[in-house]
């Protein structure tokens, strides 16, 4: 990115190739919408180009990128008047599918679909910090910079979000229709205690 800042614009192409995949994945899970995720990803790289002169070599490029992504996503949510509600989990898979909100699909038996639903039902801020914390290349120090809070606060928020996700998931499992052979609430967690 320093090269881009210094005028070598082709270097942004390399950054795009390396990072657009994970960035898009983050944005899809955050917004629940493939089309919106692509628009936001495009905007993120546009802003990188436009504001390249502001880039400073005092942190990782990845943290800077997700900081931009967060702002672009917030702009997107402001412009689209509806808050991000639960969305069809199929939107988060490889094949885009513009079906209605995932709340109507809470009875699906697929674990991934249920987890998508649970994720979508999280508060947007909780979803955001949870997704950022699962990216191993970001330290909590970097996440705290992105979220503009302390490291301790970032950890507490991430931990709380994970617990909420677990609770929502279990609740969705328990709500499954009995005639479809509902999985027990602990089916995903039936592998026994795990000690670190």
């Amino acid at each position, binding site marked *: 990115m320093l*090269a881009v800042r210094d*005028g*070598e*614009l*082709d*270097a*942004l*192409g*390399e950054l*795009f*190739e*390396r990072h*657009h*995949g*994970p960035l*898009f*994945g983050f944005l*899809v*899970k955050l917004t629940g919408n*493939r089309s919106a*995720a*692509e628009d936001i*990803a*495009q905007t993120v*790289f*546009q802003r990188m*180009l436009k504001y390249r002169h502001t880039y400073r070599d005092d942190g990782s490029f990845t943290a800077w990128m997700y900081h931009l992504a967060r702002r672009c996503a917030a702009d997107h949510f402001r412009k689209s008047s509806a808050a991000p509600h639960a969305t069809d989990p199929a939107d*988060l*898979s*490889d094949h*885009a599918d513009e079906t209605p909100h995932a709340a109507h699909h809470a009875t699906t038996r697929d*674990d*991934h679909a249920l*987890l*998508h639903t649970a*994720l979508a039902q999280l508060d947007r801020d909780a979803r955001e910090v*949870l997704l950022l*914390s*699962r990216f*191993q290349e970001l*330290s*909590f120090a970097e996440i705290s910079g992105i979220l503009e809070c302390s490291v301790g606060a970032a*950890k507490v928020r*991430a*931990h709380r979000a*994970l*617990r909420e*996700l*677990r609770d929502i*998931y279990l609740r969705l499992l328990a709500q499954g229709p009995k005639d479809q052979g509902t999985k027990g609430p602990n089916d*995903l*967690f039936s*592998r*026994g*205690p*795990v*000690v*670190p």
Partner: protein
Amino acid sequence: MNCQSVRDLLPDLLDNRTAATTHLEARAHLARCPDCQREFAELSQAAQALDAIPTPVPSPQLRTNFYTMLEAEKQAGVAPSRREPRARRRLHWGWILSPLAACALVALGFALGHRATPAVSRGEPSAESIAMQAELKKLRADVNKMTTAVAYTLFQQQQGPANERLREILVAAKAENPSDKILDDLVLALTLDPSANVRLRAIEALYPHAERELVRAGVLAALPREQNPLVQIELIDFVAAAQDPNAAPVLAKMADDEAINTSVRDAAKMALAQL
């Protein structure tokens, strides 16, 4: 340590960034407390399930739009080409060692010749002079061997990881109906891998999937950025064989670019004629 204190630390214990040697008291409590173990297991599996959600792949339009935007910015005359800086930045140790070795040899030869040359010479080389010259010749041969050995070692080091990446490419290429993710990885190798050999194999692996929009867009995006003439020609052949009409403007530009290798420009002209 009580259960509440331990449960506050559970997310930290779940985090792979946390060293195994930290929170020893909490770990000890966890090893003997079934309730905390159950809580830890649930959170652990929720986190793993979250990590296991497949990452969706964007449509080819994202890449196309990005490079269109980048090209527009470049055309606005904001920045110079990356080619010269890249060439300047690329260091070959052989290029450094060879002139250094040559200088050392010259200096050594000068020193030895100075010692060996008699004050007055009647044109006939002395025995000592002949011996010195033989030593110089041997030293020259040793320096050449050293330079070659270093260059070969560097070559081997470069080829080691490239061979590994080649293996990955070949495994991915064998899939009958590869997912978008695998194709995306192949396009990534084509665009970013430093080894021309790996990039060539990536193109070869992508040929059977030329009808996929993701592949065509990726190859077309890689074409103007590729600098190796062999790979450039392969990419040109690919877009011509795929009959990709979007390639016409890129090929036209390459055909007129005098900075590009003549063979590559000829290939671009032929491909244009085919489209």
